[in-house]
Structures are given as structure tokens and as C-alpha cells.
């Protein structure tokens, strides 16, 4: 089962701890999509998780270079929809 967390706030503790706890169950594939100010979330809090970010939201904040260095895949809205529809469950925090 694939679970997608869409996170809007920077460093959203409850969303991140939930995703990390779910990821310990190996029958579940957990992914995060960072949008809005969540694209500024510190890399160390995301360790061990598959993380995507919304390209426009990253560029609006002027942190494109930083995010690219972290090799985080950047999605457009088509990519975001694809991720949403291919996941079995989506939680938009």
C-alpha cells in the first residue's frame, strides 16, 4: 500500500512523525510531497523518506538551488496529480 503525505507547513512535526512511523511497516510505501512553505523543511528531519517537492513553490521561495543539491524530485501540477492518483491513500496536512 502506498501512502502519500502532502505537507504545507515548514517542519510539520505531526505529519513527519506519522510518516516516519508508517515507514517502519515495510508493507507500506510512504512518500512525502512538500508544497507551500513546507519546501523549506530541514533535510535532516526527512531522512529515510521518499520526498518530492512542488517546483513552483520551491522557486517562489528562491531555494531551487538548495533543493536541487538535495536531489529532491521537483514536480509540476501534472506530476502532483499523478502522484496523488497512483497512491492508495493521501493525507493533505
Amino acid at each position, binding site marked *: 500500500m502506498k501512502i502519500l503525505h502532502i505537507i504545507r507547513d515548514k517542519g510539520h512535526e505531526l505529519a513527519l512523525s506519522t510518516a516516519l512511523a508508517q515507514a517502519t511497516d515495510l508493507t507500506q510505501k510512504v512518500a512525502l510531497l512538500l*508544497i507551500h512553505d513546507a519546501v523549506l523543511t530541514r533535510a535532516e528531519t526527512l531522512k529515510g523518506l521518499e520526498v518530492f517537492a512542488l517546483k513552483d513553490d520551491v522557486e517562489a521561495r528562491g531555494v531551487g538551488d538548495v533543493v536541487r543539491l538535495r536531489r529532491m524530485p521537483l514536480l509540476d501540477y501534472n506530476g*502532483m496529480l499523478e502522484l496523488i492518483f497512483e497512491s492508495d491513500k493521501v493525507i493533505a496536512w
Partner: protein
Amino acid sequence: MSEKLGILLTTSPENENTHTVLRLAETALAEGRQVEIFLMCDGVYHLNDARLEGLTQKGAKVVVCAHNCLERKVERKSFVLWGSQYDLAVLIKESYRFLSFN
């Protein structure tokens, strides 16, 4: 029937949620998907946002919580359905994917 994307929007147009919901809905409609948006709380202030009316012209269905509109004295508009929490209860069951923007 195509897969329906259900969206709950409860924030005023001051929030970045508005931009994301608009872009996501437009993209989904262009891909041939159904989109239904339920507005409640300060989300009902979108009845005065021309961009939302534009979205309904592209095929999105928009429903508001009439109770929240009356509380806020937000006038009824012809492009939205004057609904209740029952509409949200059905949408959350029937949509293929459901996103909350709170």
C-alpha cells in the same frame, strides 16, 4: 465515469491554498478528470473570487456550506451549489481521491 478529485477548502483567499487548489483543479480538468470543491469556514469567501467562477466554467463543481455563508453574510452566487455538510459527507465517500486544504 472518470475518477473524481474531491477537495475541501476552508481558508480565505489570503491563503496559498487558493492558488494550489486552482492550479490543481485546472490541471485535473485538462486531464479529463472530474473535480468537486466543497467550501466551508472562511473558504466561503471564495464566492467573491472571480478565479473560482472561472474554474466552474472549465467544468469544476463547487458546493458551499450555506450555513457558513449566512453567518458571514456572503451572498449566494449562481455558479455554486448552495449546499450543506451532507454534500461534503457524500463527496468524501464518493471521490476517488480526497484532499483537504485547511
